[in-house]
């Protein structure tokens, strides 16, 4: 097996000199060697929701029954940069296969057809200091069912290690999932978070994602919007400081008619942080009437940062509307001056603006206690 995994591929390549076509997870052999499982805490499950461990074979059978994507085709001179997976994920095939080679079981959460749960379910993963741990989940939301699920990945503040996560989601017809993922790992962690979702007709996934800690983060999400009128909404934020690195890839493949994709990213970069964000809206033939929108706002706090963004729209359907926008810069001088006249110094103003950026996502996450922990975590980092 390869010791360097190529992750987060762009679906269409660009200049190699920019070093944006994919991310690289080095030292994979050591990271995945003797990997344990994180300590899992799951809140009481309401009636109609179950969670159990299943064999890899059973998980594969369930994935095989999910709505299928069409075979990837070579578009006149453009070869997909990655090998298509049976069930596509953001980080991609190499990570998926490596994780499968060390995860003997898959945690399967199922929501029965027609079951609608209002109270959120909390699923917390504690990653041990100095250890390597991996975990793989499947979430299957039955037809017409709905669930709010909050997952967090955490460790001690100064802890280090490897946290490998993979979540595959199947949303049946008219299923709704509001999923939050909050990463609050220690400053020495390498974090890989892979997500893939298959959306059937009129199903919807709302993904609130906060990437707040860790030394190196690789985050990928791919949505296969196969069903007509399916919806994928992403609200993501990241806080990357010091010498930290974040490599992210969000890919919405809009295949069904009248699908709706909204992605917004708010980020803060400071110190010598490096960050790459790939965001793709991919309108496939047959996606008539679909809408895709992607926005990124990046707040730059230091002159030593490296910020890379590549917001792409791929389109082979006439009757669609796609938009993307990005705003990248430091705090507005006028705003700093105004706050200064109100007795708020530059540092306090800066912190205020960081909270404002990250707060847009934090406020979408249920649970006062978790919100308080998120705020404390951000404060400790600033």
């Amino acid at each position: 097996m390869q010791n360097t995994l190529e992750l987060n591929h762009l679906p269409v390549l660009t200049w190699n000199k920019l070093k944006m076509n994919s991310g690289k997870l080095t030292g994979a052999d050591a990271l995945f060697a003797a990997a344990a499982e994180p300590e899992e805490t799951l809140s009481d499950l309401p009636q109609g929701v179950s969670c159990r461990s299943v064999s890899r074979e059973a998980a594969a059978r369930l994935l095989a029954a999910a709505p299928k994507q069409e075979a990837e085709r070579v578009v006149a001179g453009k070869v997909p940069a990655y090998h298509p997976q049976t069930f596509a994920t953001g980080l991609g095939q190499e990570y998926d296969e490596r994780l499968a080679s060390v995860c003997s079981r898959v945690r399967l959460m199922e929501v029965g057809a027609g079951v609608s749960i209002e109270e959120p379910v909390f699923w917390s993963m504690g990653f041990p200091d100095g250890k390597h741990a991996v975990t793989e989940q499947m979430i299957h939301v039955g037809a017409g069912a709905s669930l709010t699920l909050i997952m967090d990945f955490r460790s001690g503040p100064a802890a280090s290690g490897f946290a490998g996560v993979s979540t595959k989601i199947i949303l049946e017809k008219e299923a709704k999932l509001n999923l939050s993922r909050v990463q609050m790992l220690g400053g020495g962690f390498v974090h890989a978070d892979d997500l893939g979702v298959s959306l059937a007709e009129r199903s919807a996934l709302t993904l609130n994602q906060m990437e707040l800690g860790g030394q190196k983060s690789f985050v990928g999400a791919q949505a296969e919007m196969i069903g007509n009128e399916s919806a994928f909404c992403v609200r993501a934020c990241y806080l990357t400081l010091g010498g930290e690195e974040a490599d992210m890839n969000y890919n919405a493949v809009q295949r069904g008619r009248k699908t709706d994709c909204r992605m917004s990213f708010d980020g803060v970069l400071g110190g010598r942080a490096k960050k790459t964000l790939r965001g793709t809206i991919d309108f496939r033939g047959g996606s008539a009437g679909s809408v895709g929108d992607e926005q990124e706002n990046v707040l730059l706090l230091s002159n030593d940062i490296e910020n890379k963004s590549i917001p792409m729209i791929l389109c082979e359907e006439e009757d669609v509307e796609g938009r993307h926008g990005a705003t990248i810069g430091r705090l507005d001088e006028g705003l700093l001056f105004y706050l200064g006249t109100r007795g708020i110094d530059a540092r306090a103003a800066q912190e205020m603006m960081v909270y404002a950026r990250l707060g847009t996502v934090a406020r979408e996450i249920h649970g006062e206690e978790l919100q308080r922990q998120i705020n404390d975590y951000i404060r400790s980092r600033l």
Partner: protein
Amino acid sequence: MAKQQIDELDRSLYDFKDDESGFYRIEDGLTKEIVRQISEEKHDPEWMCEFRLRALKTYHELSVPDWGPSIDGLDMNSIATYVRPNTDMKGSWEEVPEDIKNTFEKLGIPQAERESLAGVGAQYDSELVYHNVREEVAAQGVVYTDLESALTGDYRDMVKEYFMKLVPVTDHKFAALHGAVWSGGSFVYVPKGVKVDIPLQSYFRLNAKGAGQFEHTLIIVDEGADLHFIEGCSAPKYNVANLHAGCVELYVKKGARLRYSTIENWSKNMYNLNTKRALVEEGGIMEWVSGSFGSHVSYLYPTTILKGDGSHAEFTGITFAGSGQNLDTGAKMIHTGKRTSSYIDSKSICKSGGISTYRSSVVIGRSAEGAKASVSCASLMLDSQSRSDTVPAIIVNTSDADVGHEAKIGRISDEAVFYLMSRGITEADARAMIVSGFANPVSKELPLEYAAEMNNLIKLEMEGG
């Protein structure tokens, strides 16, 4: 609302062919011997011959790009890299051989020169056949000549100093190819403080079947000077691949301004692998205006390096991809100077199975404090057989920068067509009007004659059916 059938561009204006009899044509392929032979034919100084051979070595070492449209249909073993027409360069249209003169007459070049240009260069296959500059412009010290003359004439040291320094042969495989077999092109030098009021134009015509054109354009606009340079190109269509791998190097000195406008209308068997780059010094301004309508495959990304403090660049471009075309176009802006600014405004239209890709990069270097960059790109899909991709990369390495980007993709709005029809305009005219409006930011930047030609092409397109 019923969709309207839209036909291909009427290319009969460009598709006539001339007989090659009497022309010198080097054998097909790319070897050291062929490169030496080209060098001999062109009476290169020794350093240039060595340069070509080094470039050829680099060409063989570099890979074909793995990120863009396929160029599998391009076989260098079937391309003649040098075809010399049966004439030397002339300073008067009357002296140009009749058949070649007729070609340029049909393309309207002599007429344009008489009416609206300060000077014209006309390249036919691998060599310039005509070059002239108005006396009053020459009297200001403006040099506008073919690059070969400059290479051995009074400006030889300047050519040696600047030639392929901005686009090194190691840049990519087709820059290396260009370095090995370049031929023709123009050299322009505008002295300090001189403002050339009316444009200069070079027109490149590739007539030979299965041939390549590798012209090199080198322009130096000295401190405080001002120039508008127009480049046009066309070729008749053949059933074998032709290749264009030109190179444009532009030096904009302190406080100078250069506008470089291109109307590219190559035939649809053409692989257009062109490289254009500008270096802008303190307070300088670089403006690109680009219309890409032709070729089978294009890789074209005019690049600006904003080196000088306070320098500024703009790119305004439109790409129209029809049946059988895969046009990968865009721009690159590299900010290294302080308080530099750039603006990209790009439009693309695709139809009848055409593929249009907008590809760009905006790089704000660590030293580019106070840099501002803005990108706006819009794509119009005219049917679902076509494809339009937007691939914009943004790299920012300093906090003291302000970067904005916006892009949108869509079709002609039914509501807009309905509104215009409710005002008594036919559906066909309404659609043509909307597409012309879409292209307006580019056409308004072109000289009137060229804008009219572009709008006519769009109108022709929209009238079919």
